[in-house]
């Protein structure tokens, strides 16, 4: 059960604390201070990750960017999870009735167009920005966990203890919100955590299309994209942010995997 799982709560707490810690640390290291005399310094003891074309300290920029990417990802996850629980729960409980048909149709609609293309289309029209990007991602990212919750609810709805609760005279709403949805939360949460690497990847994709964080704000995707054009002058510029991103993504993936194994819903 959700409330007895200490590991899960620690994991979720870390997901909130670490990004903001990194953001503050990065801010303190002055990611925006320009000194062109120090441009294109390779990694050294003074600048562990080198400097960029404007002489900005890449270490500070990468720390800040990691914090930024992670914190907005956490926000997107929150939006997506809320939407998934509400809409997926309703669709599962109203299985094969009109609300379920409408919600399922919307889910199929969002699935038809590649995720990133939707976000690109939205931000071609509206002013881009990394916080807005993640709100849009959250508004689109609920579909996969919602599908899972729907399937889970359909399954639980027909199980014996729900029938028993009905016999005891609990109302429909009580059964839905107190028995069925809590039981389906865990698989949905896990599927969302598995989704984090992809979310961070989407940010990189958006930066490639010029729609992620706007300069001078550094985000991981922005740093990789900018570094890529300077690959011949400074190999560390694209490589180190990519490496950091890989480490972050694989850490989260491994932690989620362990969590999944600890509960019975692992992949």
């Amino acid at each position: 059960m959700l409330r007895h799982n200490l590991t899960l709560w620690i994991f979720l707490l870390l997901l909130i604390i670490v990004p903001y810690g990194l953001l503050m640390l990065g801010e303190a290291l002055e990611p925006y201070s320009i000194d062109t005399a120090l441009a294109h310094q390779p990694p050294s003891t003074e600048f562990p990750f080198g400097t960029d074309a404007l002489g900005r300290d890449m270490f500070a920029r990468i720390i800040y960017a990691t914090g930024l990417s992670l914190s907005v990802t956490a926000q997107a996850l929150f939006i997506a999870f809320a939407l998934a629980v509400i809409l997926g729960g309703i669709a599962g409980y109203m299985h094969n009735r009109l609300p379920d048909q409408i919600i399922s149709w919307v889910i199929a609609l969002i699935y038809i167009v590649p995720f990133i293309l939707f976000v690109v289309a939205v931000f071609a029209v509206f002013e881009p920005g990394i916080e807005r990007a993640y709100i849009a991602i959250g508004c689109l990212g609920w579909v996969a966990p919602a599908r899972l919750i729907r399937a889970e609810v359909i399954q639980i709805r027909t199980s014996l203890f729900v029938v028993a609760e009905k016999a005891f005279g609990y109302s429909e709403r009580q059964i839905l919100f107190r028995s069925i949805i809590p039981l389906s939360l865990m698989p949905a949460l896990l599927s969302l955590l598995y989704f984090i690497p992809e979310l961070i990847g989407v940010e990189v994709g958006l930066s490639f299309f010029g729609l992620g964080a706007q300069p001078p704000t550094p985000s991981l995707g922005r740093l990789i994209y900018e570094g890529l054009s300077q690959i011949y002058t400074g190999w560390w510029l694209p490589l180190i942010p990519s490496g950091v991103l890989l480490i972050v993504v694989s850490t989260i993936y491994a932690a989620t995997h362990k969590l999944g194994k600890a509960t019975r819903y692992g992949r």
Partner: protein
Amino acid sequence: MRQLLLSALYGASLLLGVITLTFLLFNVAPGDPARVMLGPNASEDAVQLLRAELGTDRPVWEQLQHHLVRLLRLDLGRSIIDGRLVSVEIINKFRTTLTLGGLALLIAFCLSYILNLFVFYLPNFSPVLALTKIGVITPTFFSGVIVALLFGIFLPIVPLTGYGSTESSWIHLMLPASVVALYPIAVMTSIFREKIQETLGRDYARSAFSLGFSRLYVFHVTLLPSVAVSLLAGWVNLLSTIFVASFIIEVIFSIPGVGPLLISAIQQKDFPVLQGIVILNACFFVLLNWMSEFLFRLIDPRIRHYAKA
């Protein structure tokens, strides 16, 4: 048959939804196409005239009707930047992306088949498992960056860019396509391993072994057909990933496909082109999903049977 017709209708309704959504997005949105085309110095009269010509001064509902009728004639309008026909422009770029994606798919298919066979013979051979795990978490752009660095600077033996120039050939696409293929290979190998482990425990698999059939025979005749549908479903799901990865790899390796077109359309706020790309993608995936449903029935008698019952 009736089922297939119904699912085709469902797909059409989804397509209509996407078209309406993109239409609303690009028309209710701020920014006047007539103003963008003529620039800030044009007189108000000229803008008004162009608006009437484009039909953007009429009510939204009427515009939508007009838009749908035009789409039925495969007319996606003209680019608001240079007036080229969007359909021609997109189809050309789409062909390049399809070639890249298709090549990647082919590479992924062949390699994951070989790896699967390998995994089947040595299910606990740890290097393969570790490699697939790494492959699953490595984002495509990262492998793209690594490969670009490796072959561009340290090991310049394979042409890195240059597809689309005069004497280009599919050789120039090999490297980018292999990069795109990495993720699908890893995912498919791990899914396949899971499915095979499941099926190996079944009675029919055990009896096939006990009847003395060779491992190769059991793999191809007993196991492969029973997991074919879930494998195919996995491939269909991966296709959209392959597509998006192709866009990004096109940007890294400067291949003139949909990816760079997308970037220029975003920068110039060329809405007809963007709209065309989204709609074409939606068409492609609706068609793909519908065909895969058809294929599932064709391949797996169990689905046909349950559908009838």
